[in-house]
């Protein structure tokens, strides 16, 4: 039975989480717009979040092991709030970056090198 035909289980969630994570990293690496990079951050954090929730779910645990409480969901809550805080700081930084460089293209910030 391949991963495509078996019933949805923990591994499917982990795969989706990994895909989100990698998409986010690629987005951060390739986007030139500050806000695009910010979207990449959200994807990365939510990839990790999905892992937490999937691991914490009592339904998805392998059969025979007991549930492990709701820690996963709680962590997801904390991460959502942290992501919001980071987004707030990021918007502020993006704005001041715009003031300084008259663009939100991150590749234009290249004065520091050596």
């Amino acid at each position, binding site marked *: 039975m391949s991963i495509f035909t078996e019933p949805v289980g923990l591994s499917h969630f982990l795969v989706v*989480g990994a895909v989100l*994570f990698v998409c*986010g*990293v690629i987005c*951060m690496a390739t986007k030139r717009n*500050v806000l695009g*990079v910010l979207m990449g*951050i959200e994807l*990365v*954090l939510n*990839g*990790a*979040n999905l*892992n*937490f929730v*999937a*691991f*914490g779910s009592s339904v998805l*645990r*392998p059969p*025979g*092991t*007991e549930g*492990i409480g709701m*820690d*996963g969901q*709680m*962590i997801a809550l*904390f*991460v959502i*709030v*942290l992501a919001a*805080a*980071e987004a*707030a*700081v*990021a918007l*502020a*930084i*993006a*704005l*001041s*970056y715009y*003031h*300084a*460089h008259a663009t939100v293209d*991150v590749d234009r*910030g*290249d*004065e*520091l*090198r*050596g």
Partner: protein
Amino acid sequence: MTAADLRLLVPEIVLIAAAVTIYLGGAFSTARRAWSWIAAAALLLAAVALWSQNPSADGGSLGCDALARYVQWFALAAGALLVSLASRPLRFDGTPEYVGSLLLTVAGLMLVAAAEDIVLMFVALELISIPTYVLLYLGRDDAESQESAAKYFFLGVLASAILLYGFSFLYGATGSTAFSEIRAALDGTTILPPGFAVFARLAMVLVFAGLCFKVAAVPFHFYAPDVYQGTTHANAALLSVVPKAAGFVVMARILVAAIPGMEPYSWGVVLAVAVLTMTFGNVMALWQDDFRRLLAYSSIAQTGYILLALAVGLAARDAPGAWNGIVALWFYLATYAAATIGAFATMEYLGRAERRLDSVDDLAGLGRTRPAAAAVMAVCMFSLAGVPPLAGFWGKLLVFGGALSVDTSGTAGWWFTAAAVVGVLNAAVAAAYYLRIVAVMYFRIPLATPPARGGRGAWMSAVACALLVVGIGIYPGPLMRAGNFCDQQLPRVDAGAKHHSPPFGRQKNPPPPQSAPQFGMAATKKVSTPNAYHIRRTLVLSQTRVTTSCHIIFK
């Protein structure tokens, strides 16, 4: 329990309350100089609270083992030096936000040290990171500064996310967020679901990668030179001390103590990163002219030495006393922090508000024009280079001695001997650029007398650092003993974990007798239900305060 838990938190609460007061006060008052005094008073109060704590008190997801105490004192001392260093008001709006954020990073470091739970640890790390972004933003208001703030922010968030992703696998593999239970699950005391053990290895790699960013280790170091160069001396001093200390605490907690059975893999990884880091940092530092950029590469190189100590700690956990790496790690970190803050404080003192000293050439002839500042700078440079009577020498001695003392019967010993040789060669290379600064100060014709208008606070900080460096160099015993908590920190492999509710299945082994040596990390506390969340709430809330503080830019 809850009351005791709160009592354990008093120092952090004092700092966070002071930070909130300073933010709010800044919104209501136009005072400029008072904030540093409030911050200093808060640090003093926190120190009193920490001093009066009962070290054996119980705390929920908070620990109070020797490592936590050591790092908490370290955080308070570094915080005092940094507040003093940054006591000159900013040239533009935002001084209260700056000082408040500084206090929050110190509180975050103290919480990281005490965290016994991956959630609290992650939130505490963010309590360091987010104020640091704000500090980088506030320090200067030119294009370079914005570039460095943006670089640090995006890479910092990516590192946090990688760390979090690693934590998610750690949680998934073991079914718990508490370090004591993670350890119990991984050392075979409880049975994992089939196939889950591989998650622990994945977690180790991801966590280490995320932390390499915090400590600026190769290959996650590349932000450091740009960010240091683009910000102020005070921010550079903060960046080179606080996130690094936090990163090493988490590494010690997780790699050494919470993930057992990984030493055969982990010491190799850490050793390779250590050698690469020190070599890269030292070589790149050789042709830098910008002072902060030079010290950024220097801090990368110093990270390499500290990682070498960590690798020794992973490989030689059974070695006695001073040679087991862990002592070296904490001793080295303290001496490095003192010398680095001293160097940046001297530079801050020598400049003036409108014109920073940025270049090494600005120091030309300082020995004649400003002999006292030159002496302080020379002491810090000699210590960083590891010249014998100073503190840095003892740090390097402990690190390399530890590496050489790893049992040579196996292959590990040869690798560590090779690493120690590379390290000593590196120290020789490093001496070249540290001594170049000293030579510039004493053997070059002075071009212009530096204004030395950086303020009394920066000068006090610089002198205190120099005195610390000399004092530790002459009398290193107390600091070494303070850092010698490996007996509590490192459990023997057969020690067994004390645990109560196995998350998965039945227990494989009968519980070990209670007289078995307990590892300090899990000197197990009663978990107090609401309070851990109270703590976290307070934490996250204080982050809200930080995020609101960034609104200032819209003015």
